[in-house]
């Protein structure tokens, strides 16, 4: 299951959703807004998306992940809008029968999400300036 949301990510609900009797392992990844990038201080991030394509790509990532590992349940959820330091921007929860699979599947899903999903963040630096983050641009 995939979700784009403007509300705070409720990772407890999301983790409960993936727990299953036939899965002995759950791995949850949370991406949170970090205060420091090198020497620069972030006060907030704004996340923008191309929603229709982002949802399509996230659904494809779920399908690819399920093809490669015996996933019981998984949820990819990304938050959009204005986030403060410490807020959760993305959560990936995966349950699998065994732990190695659950770690690999969760890591694959977040790695692919960061590569492929049309979502962008704008830094709000402590000095008042802002800057879209476009790696390599």
């Amino acid at each position, binding site marked *: 299951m995939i979700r784009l949301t403007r509300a705070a990510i409720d990772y407890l609900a999301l983790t409960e959703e993936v727990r299953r009797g036939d899965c002995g392992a759950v791995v949850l990844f949370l991406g949170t807004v970090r205060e420091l990038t090198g020497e620069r201080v972030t006060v907030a991030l704004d996340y*923008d*998306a191309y929603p229709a*394509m982002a949802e399509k790509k996230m659904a494809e990532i779920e399908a690819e992940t399920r093809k490669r590992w015996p996933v019981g349940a998984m949820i990819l959820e990304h938050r959009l809008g204005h986030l403060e330091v410490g807020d959760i921007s993305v959560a990936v929860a995966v349950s699998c029968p065994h732990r190695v699979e659950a770690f690999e599947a969760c890591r694959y899903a977040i790695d692919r999400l960061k590569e492929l*999903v049309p979502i962008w963040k704008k830094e709000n630096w402590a000095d008042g300036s802002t800057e879209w983050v476009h790696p390599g641009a």
Partner: protein
Amino acid sequence: MTVLLFARARDLLGIDRLEIDEAATVGDLRRRLTQLYPKLAGLAAVSAFAVNNEFASDTTPIPANAEVALLPPVSGG
């Protein structure tokens, strides 16, 4: 045709979409954008394009009424 703009591309032009004559391929569109919007040139050179919600290469044809988007390098997560 309409081209959707996001992130820095939107800020550079101050609009979230632009109207432009039909282009046969993504490569044609990229060249056209670069000529018409010099401010966008640097970013357009390193951006991807999407045609109907799928990543497209410069040789991808653009069908009539396609939804086209300029996608600067992504930074979600």
